């Protein structure tokens, strides 16, 4: 929800600036939660594309939010397709090695907080997208279905499965700690 509707009165530039301030952290978080290489650059691209269509957006703040995340979702799909065509080559890092075991500090930090994003990343792609669009982007069921080009029923099903997966992961983490 965009916080103050009165802040969006005025010129188009004022409304776009207010929309950026409200939505940019959420767009960045959405792109980060899906492992985009350069999420800040992708966020800027999303808002540049949004600005081109900003004056023709219908539906007020909800329309702006839905379009912003539709663009972000399209960028995410493009990113994953590009990743599939040409796998990224990265230097070896010990932390990325599956044989790597968390240190005691990492486990404590994960238990205290800061592990919600990593827990989200363990979900499947569709479940992760639905949960991130609902929680991080703040979209409704219908808006999420519109962004992902799916039916509301399928979104609701993915959402329920995703939440159950998260609860299972959370219970497992609690037992481990």
């Amino acid at each position, binding site marked *: 929800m965009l916080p103050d509707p009165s802040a969006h009165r005025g010129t188009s*530039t004022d409304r776009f600036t207010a929309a950026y301030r409200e939505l940019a952290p959420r767009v960045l978080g959405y792109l980060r939660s899906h492992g985009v290489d350069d*999420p800040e650059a992708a966020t800027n691209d999303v808002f540049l594309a949004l*600005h081109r269509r900003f004056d023709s957006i219908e539906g007020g703040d909800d329309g702006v939010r839905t379009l912003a995340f539709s663009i972000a979702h399209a960028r995410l799909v493009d990113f994953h397709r590009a990743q599939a065509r040409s796998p990224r080559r990265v230097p070896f890092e010990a932390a990325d090695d599956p044989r790597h075991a968390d240190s005691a500090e990492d486990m404590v930090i994960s238990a205290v907080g800061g592990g919600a*994003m990593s827990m989200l990343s363990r979900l499947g792609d569709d479940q992760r997208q639905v*949960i991130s669009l*609902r*929680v991080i982007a703040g979209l409704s069921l219908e808006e999420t279905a519109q962004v992902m080009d799916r039916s509301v029923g399928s979104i609701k099903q993915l959402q329920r499965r995703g939440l159950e997966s998260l609860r299972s992961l959370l219970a497992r983490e609690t037992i481990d700690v």
Partner: protein
Amino acid sequence: MSELIDVLLAESELPDDGLLRDLLEELEREATAVAPMPSAALSELMSPRRTTPSHAHTRGARRRPSFAGRGAVITGVVVIAALGLGAGAAAASPDARSAIGAGVAVIAHLFQPAAAAANAPDSGSDPAVGATESPDPSESPEPTESPEPSESPEPTPSITPSPSDDGSDGHGKSGETHGNGKGNQSGHGNGKGQGNGGPAPTP
């Protein structure tokens, strides 16, 4: 946003799961904690300088001249049109043409006496006055006594040439000069000429 999380849990039939709610709230805080820096292009789009003249920077507004410039152009066109209409109306009106003709004659008359005096030094400065008044009887013998106008086969001007002038030459010259002058100035000359036609000097 916690309201949305409550709705989300209720939709998934998990309304009382506190751990899951805490996890989702933490996820939202963690994901939205970092505000990205806008790029240069995006900063330009959000610059306050674009706020005020956003509509004045359109191409049409830039090409359109200022109101003062347009006013000057319109005024110039109106003045030129009015001058053209005035000139056309003056040329089309007979009164205006006669007035202009009279003005031209007056201007020409200012230069004419000197030329007339050079050609006929004995005649008066005013041809009309000379025609009505014949101060010198020798110039016009018997100006008032013309018992037989028919004796003069042709009317002669009221002002007779000086004796020193050659008959034919002087008659023709003065006739041309003063006849034109009287005709232009008044109608007295013609009447008097007809009356005095008899005593036309003959060599």
